[in-house]
């Protein structure tokens, strides 16, 4: 089990997330795909931190602090995204990104 293996796994999850954001119209599932993206990045950060421990001997927990902060950003993003979804649903009675096309030229 090498660093490259963990990075391949992270890349695979990231690409599935990209496919989810691009191919779905349900706003809830698009938000879940964003969570997939953030988790893939977290996995890559932790794997890098585990592998390059010798590079920063005085701060071995730095990558994990970064992951905790990404987690906070993810929580904020989910909260704001879901409340935008609620506001959109109140106005258009739909959670489908294909029907919300007021800005379409």
């Amino acid at each position, binding site marked *: *089990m090498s*660093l*490259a*293996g963990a*990075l*391949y*796994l992270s*890349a*695979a*999850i*990231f*690409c*599935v*997330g*990209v*496919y*989810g954001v*691009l*191919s*779905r119209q*349900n706003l*809830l*599932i698009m938000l*879940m*795909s964003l*969570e*997939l993206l953030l*988790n893939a990045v*977290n*996995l890559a950060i*932790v*794997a890098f931190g*585990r*592998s390059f*421990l*010798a590079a920063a*001997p005085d*701060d*071995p*927990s*730095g990558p*994990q*602090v970064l*992951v*905790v*902060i990404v*987690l906070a*950003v993810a*929580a*904020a993003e989910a*909260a*704001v995204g*879901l409340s*935008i*979804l*609620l*506001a959109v649903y109140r106005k258009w009675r*739909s*959670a489908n990104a*294909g029907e919300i096309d007021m800005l379409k030229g």
Partner: protein
Amino acid sequence: MDAITFYISGILSVIAAVVIVTRRNPVYSTIWLVGFFVTISIDFLILRAPFLAVIQVLVYAGAIMVLFLFVIMLLNLQPDELVETVTRRRKAGAALLSAAIFIMLCAAISQSPSVGGAAPLTAPLPAGHPLAEGSDTVAIGESMFQRHVLAFEVSSVLILIAIIGAIYLAKKRRPAAPLRSASPASVDGVRPEGALEPHPAAGHAERALAAEPVGARHP
């Protein structure tokens, strides 16, 4: 042993991710999302980050997943509202694009000399590592509140703003109050051209109007 567990949980997490983005009903996606978060948490355990594994389950599988379920139940989407109108061509384009990103990432990973020459993830921990002496929670706390305290403060401000924004966005709007029949100069604080300096008395009246809450005049 670690490697086998890692590969199994990796395969499971990719399967869970694929299921999440392909279900029509978001409730099933949410349930699979829990499984996905658990597999990522297993990966964190194998990568010697037990604190993050616990936080992953607590924050993601506990809090964010419940948030998603709340919103799903609140919206109460009917089966006919879940129908999507994505064309086959657009789906193929999305698959092609994400496959291209995957191939490019794999090429970058396989050709990077620093990744190829990195220590294996199963290498023993160095002597001074916090996990070799017990818990990594203390080390994460010290690192977060000393070396990375600015990032920590910025993220706390971000969360505060997110709370305020979420409350504002999700709040039910009351019907808009009727416009006040004041002079046009006092509507939004911008004076029309030609009205350079209002009469002192008028200025007082304006300030009194501005200080008065809207709801007090038009309940």
